[in-house]
């Protein structure tokens, strides 16, 4: 491992271009896009894709950030394009290079196909199945032929994200056999179906356990029940209108999605939010992280039947959400971050935020002490639902889940956004833990909450003066692409936005942190008994809404 690390050069656009160019014998054209510092590598032949990916992933230690397909059949080249976006992924303990490398391949207008990356990169699995469902682009060699986003009874040959598909169309539901879940057979093996409607107030997903006694042999998770077609919904809208939908992809990550969309728009417009706005954006972002983390720790207590902890977590979360409403008029902080900056000033709430943050920090310390002192809780958390560092890396896991498996990555440091970059940058301390179990995820979450408290108190005491919003042009430049990453409470969420000829939304794609992390849940569940699954699930605390979109 150490040897491998040593051989990876410091990553920059120049290094990547040189290595890729050499590996592919020159059958590649480079440009600096979407951002000046990024690389877009357009492959002459789709067959070279695996070779290019071997170089980026194996040779340069990069990870797959997202995959974006576009229907460009009405454009000059008359084809589909698939962009595989890579980012530096091998932690060094130092900030990673803020760099995106997009490998672009063309797929024919009739019978579009590309080679599948999944056998090489497990993290490509869902991206490729999604592309097959929504665009009809076939990843040749993908090991799983099942649909992902479109469920039973969807007519064959209809692809919602193609440009010639009318979004208002509601195709008839065809008779369909039961979804082919992966099941385990053998003596004493039971199948336990759970969901999509769960016993509590939880988002919908279907879990199919194959178990012997309490031991989980296999877990097949089926999601995308809340697929609302939002990426299609925003096509043709002005970015100003689309913003309100982006902000509502997910309730618990409203600020993160609003900010990522806003930064993508600003990138396309060539506008930078003023310093005061960038600092206030971090205030909102850290408030979001804090209320999520304290609520999640409370919910983990519920999973471990420690009800005093659950109640304490709920109370802390409610106190913070009330402050959210005082600051922004909305308990989920909606309507604060806007493209160009922030909607209004937050200075009037500075003292209140400082007080709420400090009290939350103190109460959380007490809660964590009580939790750690309680052997019946600790016993449930320890060694439950382990995700190993190798698995976390192979699956491209992000956020708390990655850091609790020893992966030192945080988009606030590695892809600086808002006030995490630029003059007077706010520097977050990143916490990790190598154990990878539920306990590690609780510990990392608590450390991050404490760090959010510190950042909030620092921020409200040192807001730079100046305007709140930079003016955006009425019409955005045509055919431009923006890519933005925000560290949400669940990890890095990546928004990819492209304008059409009229400066409206041509294609919008979101890879939320939860999307990246969901495939890790069934893996971690194998190291837990059936009754511990809620605990494992809550320790990841993933959203369904921003996964399913």
């Amino acid at each position, binding site marked *: 491992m150490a040897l491998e690390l040593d051989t990876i050069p410091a990553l920059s656009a120049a290094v990547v271009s040189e290595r890729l160019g050499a590996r592919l014998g020159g059958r590649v054209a480079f440009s600096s896009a979407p951002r000046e510092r990024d690389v877009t590598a357009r492959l002459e032949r789709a067959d070279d894709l695996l070779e290019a990916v071997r170089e980026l992933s194996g040779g340069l230690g990069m990870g797959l950030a997202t995959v974006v397909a576009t229907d460009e059949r009405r454009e000059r080249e008359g084809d589909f394009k698939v962009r595989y976006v890579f980012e530096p992924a091998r932690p060094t303990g130092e900030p990673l290079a803020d760099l995106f490398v997009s490998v672009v391949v063309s797929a024919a207008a009739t019978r579009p196909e590309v080679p599948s990356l999944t056998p090489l990169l497990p993290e490509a699995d869902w991206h490729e199945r999604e592309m097959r469902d929504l665009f009809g682009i076939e990843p040749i060699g993908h090991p799983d032929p099942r649909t992902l986003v479109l469920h039973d009874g969807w007519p064959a040959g209809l692809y919602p994200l193609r440009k010639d598909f009318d979004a208002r169309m509601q195709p008839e539901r065809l008779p369909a056999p039961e979804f082919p879940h992966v099941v385990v057979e053998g003596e004493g093996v039971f199948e336990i179906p759970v969901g999509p409607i769960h016993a509590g107030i939880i988002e919908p997903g279907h879990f199919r356990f194959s178990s012997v006694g309490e031991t989980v042999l296999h877990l097949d998770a089926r999601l995308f029940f809340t697929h*609302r077609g939002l990426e299609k919904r925003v096509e043709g809208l002005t970015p100003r209108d689309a913003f309100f939908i982006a902000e509502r992809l997910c309730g618990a990550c409203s600020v993160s999605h609003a900010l990522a969309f806003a930064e993508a728009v600003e990138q396309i417009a060539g506008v930078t939010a003023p310093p005061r706005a960038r600092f206030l954006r971090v205030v909102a972002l850290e408030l979001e992280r804090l209320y999520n983390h304290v609520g999640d720790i409370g919910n983990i207590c519920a999973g471990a039947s420690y009800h005093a902890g659950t109640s304490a977590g709920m109370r802390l979360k409610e106190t913070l959400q009330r402050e959210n409403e005082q600051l922004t008029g909305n308990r989920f902080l909606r309507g604060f971050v806007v493209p160009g900056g922030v909607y209004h000033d937050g200075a009037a709430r500075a003292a209140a935020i400082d007080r709420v943050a400090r009290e939350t920090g103190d109460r959380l310390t007490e809660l964590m002490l009580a939790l750690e002192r309680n052997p019946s809780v600790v016993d449930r958390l320890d060694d439950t639902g382990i995700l190993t560092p190798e698995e976390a890396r192979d699956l491209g896991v992000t956020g708390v889940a990655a850091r609790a498996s020893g992966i030192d990555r945080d988009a606030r440091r590695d892809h600086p956004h808002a006030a995490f970059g630029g003059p007077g940058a706010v520097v977050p301390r990143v916490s990790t833990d190598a154990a990878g179990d539920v306990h590690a995820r609780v510990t990392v979450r608590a450390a991050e909450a404490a760090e959010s408290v510190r950042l909030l108190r620092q921020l409200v005491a040192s807001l730079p003066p100046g305007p709140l919003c930079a003016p955006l042009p009425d019409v955005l430049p045509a055919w431009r692409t923006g890519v933005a990453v925000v560290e949400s409470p669940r990890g890095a969420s990546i928004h990819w936005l492209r304008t059409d000829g009229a400066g409206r939304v041509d294609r919008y794609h979101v890879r939320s942190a939860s999307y990246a992390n969901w495939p890790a849940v069934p893996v971690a569940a194998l190291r837990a008994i059936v009754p511990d699954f809620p605990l494992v699930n809550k320790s990841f605390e993933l959203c369904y809404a921003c996964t399913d979109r």
Partner: protein
Amino acid sequence: MLRTLIQSLRDGVVTTRYPDAPAEVPERFRGAPEPEVGRPFGALPTASVCPTGAITAGEGAAYTIDLGRCIFCGRCADEPSDGAIRIGREFELSARRREDLLVRIGRDADGRVTELAPEPADTAALGERVAERIHRTLGRSLHLRHLDAGSCNACDWELVALLAPHYDVRRLGIDFVASPRHADGVIVTGSVTRNLEPAVRRTFEAVPEPRVVIAVGACGCSGGIAPASYASAGGVDQILPVDVYVPGCPPRPEAILFGILLAVGRIEAKRRPAPAR
């Protein structure tokens, strides 16, 4: 154990007295958009300012804002509209009929903004009759099965908040139960996605009659950000018979509580039709 107990005693009671006492509403809170009576009618913003299409500006004097579609972003009051619309602080917006959620704005003889009462309807008493029947059968208590039919999870989190110490809905005989068989009705968030429609129907059918349906949030009331499409039915009432609509994006916990109490007939709707002529 002792520490936990001492801490609890030190904290005291944090539970709100709502609905017996009014809820505290922050200064910045964005409630329903309201017409500013007396402003020039021509200053009302064009329908296109609304990102979810809640504004209908028809011919002549017809202008409506649909609170069922509204996501409470405040943009209609932002636009250079000469203050013709202001953002109010009202959040008790739940209604029995979809049409009661329309803010109807008229134009007087001088070309100025006036507010019109909700449309009177032939079926005005229908919802009340259902509530009476439920009230008779179930008494004042109501146990609901939550159904996430494709929400963004904000409405769901507000339902969870109702169970937290600050709201503690159980003090009012209201609870969320695990099985539809144990429920008196369903409380539905989200626009009903295509992928959830079968599960939504089956859950509803498993609830014994009489049963109420409460649609929560802009998506539940009208489709909200996910109107009818390949992936969305465009609102709960496209699939189930809705008894009470609770607007908001998301509605704050007290607003949902207001809707639940309305469903069981323990409170009067503020938005309701004038008596039938």
